[in-house]
């Protein structure tokens, strides 16, 4: 795995996080929370665009033609495979997963790769408000199940202790390895990650996840522009 693979994973996860946030823009518990969901969704979709733009500059774009047809080619976490049905799912993702991605971005900005240092720094400023939002809602108390799941997937996403994330850290390309990333996430959330057994042998290093599966067909279709085609006038569809 290359650094491009890691950046693509951040990009795909931020894209899915942004889409899932946006789905709650009219369903959150208050008007302010609706607006925050929409704004954070736009932020993360914007971040994913910037990150996709870094791939070429890193020397290798791992995206292949399979991304047009195979939902499992999108490198996002299982947490984003299906739309969230409870506000608690939103809060756990906002507090734990969004912050986990931010911590990884900190590691990129603090590392030795110039293109990542420059292009990712601004994201950290915007993410400050995502963090405040997630942490505040988390303090209100949510069900343990989505929270534990978010923690487990965040730790898995950081990678095994002897994997390529640790290697990037040794080489100085990332300022933190898996152990430091986990520690930083715990510090920021002022909480310890719940104990979980991770089967690293079953872990997929490309998608950075332990569970099989893929994003739902509707969301994949939307990502590929298929939903727009479905609603396009017939004449336009024929001419394209």
């Amino acid at each position: 795995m290359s650094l491009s693979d890691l950046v693509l994973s951040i990009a795909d996860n931020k894209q899915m996080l942004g889409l899932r946030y946006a789905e709650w823009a009219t369903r959150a518990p208050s008007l302010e929370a609706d607006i925050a969901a929409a704004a954070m969704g736009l932020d993360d979709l914007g971040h994913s665009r910037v990150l996709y733009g870094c791939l070429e500059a890193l020397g290798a774009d791992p995206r292949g033609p399979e991304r047009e047809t195979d939902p499992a080619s999108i490198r996002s976490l299982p947490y984003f495979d299906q739309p969230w049905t409870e506000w608690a799912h939103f809060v756990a993702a906002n507090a734990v997963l969004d912050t986990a991605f931010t911590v990884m971005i900190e590691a990129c900005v603090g590392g030795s790769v110039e293109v990542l240092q420059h292009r990712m720094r601004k994201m950290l400023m915007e993410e400050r408000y995502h963090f405040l939002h997630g942490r505040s809602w988390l303090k209100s108390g949510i069900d343990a199940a989505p929270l534990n799941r978010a923690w487990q997937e965040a730790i898995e996403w950081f990678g095994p202790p002897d994997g390529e994330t640790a290697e990037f850290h040794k080489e100085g390309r990332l300022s933190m390895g898996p152990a430091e990333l986990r520690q930083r996430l715990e510090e920021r959330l002022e909480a310890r990650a719940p104990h979980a057994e991770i089967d690293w042998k079953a872990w997929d290093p490309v998608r950075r996840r332990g569970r099989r599966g893929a994003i739902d067909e509707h969301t994949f279709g939307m990502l590929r522009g298929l939903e727009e085609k479905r609603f396009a006038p017939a004449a336009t569809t024929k001419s394209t």
Partner: protein
Amino acid sequence: MTTKYRRVSGDAVEYEVFARKTRVEPLHQVGSVVAPDDDLAMAYARATYDEERWCEMAIVRKDNVISLWAPGEA
């Protein structure tokens, strides 16, 4: 599903939001948000009023404002 979250009604307080576009102009009120704590109020203020390129934004709890007189009392 979402109505069980009491904090958005009973616990929430109002915050006034102030901002300015340039250093030479004073902060002026651009609106308000309702939130249960300062952190969430900051996140809401930024999300709600970020459409302009403000060089500064600040929030104040409305109940921290000391009123000298109100309309009709001067």
